[in-house]
């Protein structure tokens, strides 16, 4: 048996032995996700599963052991994922700390910062949120105005962030601030601070689809120490170099969102034909909708091939660095159209917003939620700008 085969067998045995049975049931909704943090609440099995995985470093299997990770190789990490999927083990921890801040710290952080911040993330003890967008700074993120003024031993933060997911539930924030008003991109810093600090308030945002995880977050004379201990600066990388960190993370985020179009990619026509009805020839009995659904089948199957190709070329280093922008653009636009068709197939029944029959308007709320796909994580317009400039090399205006 090769080393990897041994690893697979041992991993499987360990998972079988240690994963609580509740954690091998399919998730039934967002509330089944474990986010950890100071005020974490757990359902049966969740805490046990988190703790046992964290103890092995397997909440972040490919992070180095000294930062709370599992120290696994890329191949081993993949095997762990495969075995968890095969045995239907749930993810032990959902975390912006793992998905966003961690990669940034691993790439830009000092040794002291990594040692200080990463292990509590891996153990699910500290829950993070992201402070990027501001009301006046959406697509043009670098125009952000939240100020951080140097007061010797601390920075004084004033301003407002928007779209901070779960800000009302997070313990700490990684936040872009303006440390130089005379520069644009070169006047931004990437800062870490406690959401329990005096002067931080949050307010949930109601979306057109209903309640949401998004918040507005206000900073009113918030004091952020320059250091949280020896060498543990509150600024990642350097003051006024936060844009480099942000760009790194934005690329990361875009390639995560881009899968949109292939989600639930079964044929809509096949799914809805009996519900809408069939004509004498057995065809979906709304010829125009049938035509649109057939077009959507083409779009979805072709995009699924694209997603496969993107993944393969990305891994092999053969993919244009700006290709995630194309994936994000195409995937989100297809997904929006797909949900339009779902609404059309559902007719008046899915227009209901609060009835039991409509499951609280679930179909309509999902449809509305997709409209954000082409806005969040970089608008479609920004994606098209990037493609035209970086891939097609079209001249600047």
């Amino acid at each position, binding site marked *: 048996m090769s080393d990897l085969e041994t690893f697979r067998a041992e991993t499987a045995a360990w998972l079988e032995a240690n994963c609580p049975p509740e954690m091998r049931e399919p998730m039934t909704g967002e509330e089944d996700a474990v986010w950890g943090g100071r005020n974490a609440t757990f359902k049966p099995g969740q805490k046990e599963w988190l703790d046992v995985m964290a103890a092995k470093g397997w909440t972040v299997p490919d992070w180095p052991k000294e930062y709370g990770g599992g120290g696994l190789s890329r191949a081993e990490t993949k095997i762990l994922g495969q075995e968890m999927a095969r045995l239907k083990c749930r993810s032990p921890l959902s975390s912006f700390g793992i998905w966003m801040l961690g990669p940034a710290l691993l790439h830009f952080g000092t040794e002291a910062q990594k040692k200080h911040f990463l292990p509590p993330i891996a153990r699910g003890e500290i829950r993070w949120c992201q402070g990027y*967008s501001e*009301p*006046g*700074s*959406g*697509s*043009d993120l670098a*125009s952000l105005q939240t100020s951080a003024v140097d007061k010797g031993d601390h920075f004084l933060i004033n301003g407002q962030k*928007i*779209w901070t997911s779960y800000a009302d539930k997070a313990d700490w924030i990684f936040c872009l601030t303006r440390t130089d008003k005379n520069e644009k991109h070169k006047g931004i810093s990437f800062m870490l601070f406690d959401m329990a600090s005096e002067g931080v308030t949050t307010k949930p*945002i*109601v*979306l*057109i*689809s209903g309640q949401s995880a998004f918040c507005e977050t206000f900073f009113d004379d918030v004091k952020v120490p320059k250091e949280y201990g020896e060498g543990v600066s509150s600024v990642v990388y350097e003051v006024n170099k936060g844009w480099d960190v942000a760009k790194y993370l934005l690329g990361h985020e875009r390639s995560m969102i881009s899968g949109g179009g292939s989600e639930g990619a079964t044929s809509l026509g096949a799914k809805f034909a009996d*519900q*809408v009805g069939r004509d004498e020839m057995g065809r979906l009995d*709304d*010829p*125009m*909708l049938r035509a*649109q659904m057939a077009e959507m089948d083409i779009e979805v199957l072709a995009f699924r091939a694209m997603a496969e190709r993107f993944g393969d070329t990305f891994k092999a280093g053969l993919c244009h660095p700006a290709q995630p922008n194309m994936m994000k653009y195409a995937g989100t636009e297809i997904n*929006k159209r797909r949900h*339009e068709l779902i*609404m*059309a197939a*559902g*007719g*008046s*029944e*899915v*227009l*209901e*917003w*609060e*009835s039991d*029959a*409509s499951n609280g*308007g679930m179909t*309509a709320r999902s*449809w*509305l939620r997709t*409209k*954000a796909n*082409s*806005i*969040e994580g970089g*608008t*479609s*317009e920004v994606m*098209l700008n990037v493609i035209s400039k970086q891939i097609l090399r079209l001249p600047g205006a």
Partner: protein
Amino acid sequence: MPLYLNEDQQMLHDSAAEFMKGEAPVAHLREFRDRQCKDGFSHALWKQFAEMGFTGIMIGEDEGGLGLGHIEAGTVLEEIGRNLTPSPFLTTAVAGVEALNAGGKTLRDKYFPGILAGETVLGLAIDEGAKHRPDQIGMAATREGNGFKLDGKKQFVVQGGSADMLIVAARTSGAAGDDKGLTLFAVDANAAGVSRDSARLVDSAMAAHVQFDGVTVDADAVIGEVDDGDTVLRRLLNAGRAGAAAETLGVGAGSMDITVDYIKGRKQFGELIGSFQALQHRMAHLYSEMEIARAAVLKAQQMLDEGSSQAELMVSVAKAKAGRATALSVKEGVQMHGGVGMTDEYDIGLYMKRDRALQEFMGDANYHTNLVAEMHGY
């Protein structure tokens, strides 16, 4: 007749615009939504509609109305659309009145005074499935004594929960799919055997599922002739569809206007986003689509008013074109608003929701496009 509003029509349009903007702007919709109003509209506003004369637009002058037509009703509906005003105007004063106009004087005398006073609300009990398929009506009306007994279920009866009378399409002969055999009835919404179950829709309007269990009506309740309900139903549908197209047009125009305003004020990358050529071209295209939709809607109304034999074709063109153009308008609206367009705080999302509900009302663009192909024989 030239294809634009004449002076009188323009005056009516202006007064409807002023009225809606003053008395029932988007904030009015929010108010009724947020207080979870069970009817989904303001009865006081409905009385104001009557005072303005709106509810009598399509009622004959000899019966106390204004004796006007589809164009005039459309001017009010456009402003209802532009302000997202919740009201029973389309179902009651347009489609409902048009159906009663096709019936006998007894029913008109019974219901028109209440409509003229802004007191009566009508519900249209036509659809039986999730999609509008009036050719597939199967609900049974069986003869019993001097009248009929109704059994079956209707869906998507907008404002059905607060309606005083329901216009019900049912089969007195034949089966679903047959051309003939339908009869339309005016049924007291509180009659024994009628049960209504309302749900709030995505646009905050209330729509009812209505169950009829052995509901008895006498012969006077028949609108038009027994077994020839198709004639009345066509008038009802033409009025309702042209009206819905006009309201849709208002939604699209309102959505376009607030989006143009927004991009004229929002800066990114140091420039007003409205100065970006890619957005300009998309908005100019949208403008073109909305203008064409407006012409199609007006043409359909004019043909209905003239009694043209081609009116039904043009009504379907209008409903489809207004639907497609307005769908584009709200889609571009939300996208160009960016993040704030996704928030409940901004109005653009409400336009998207109203558009969605109007798309389904009396047949979506797909339904009407297919009808146009069928009317052209292919």
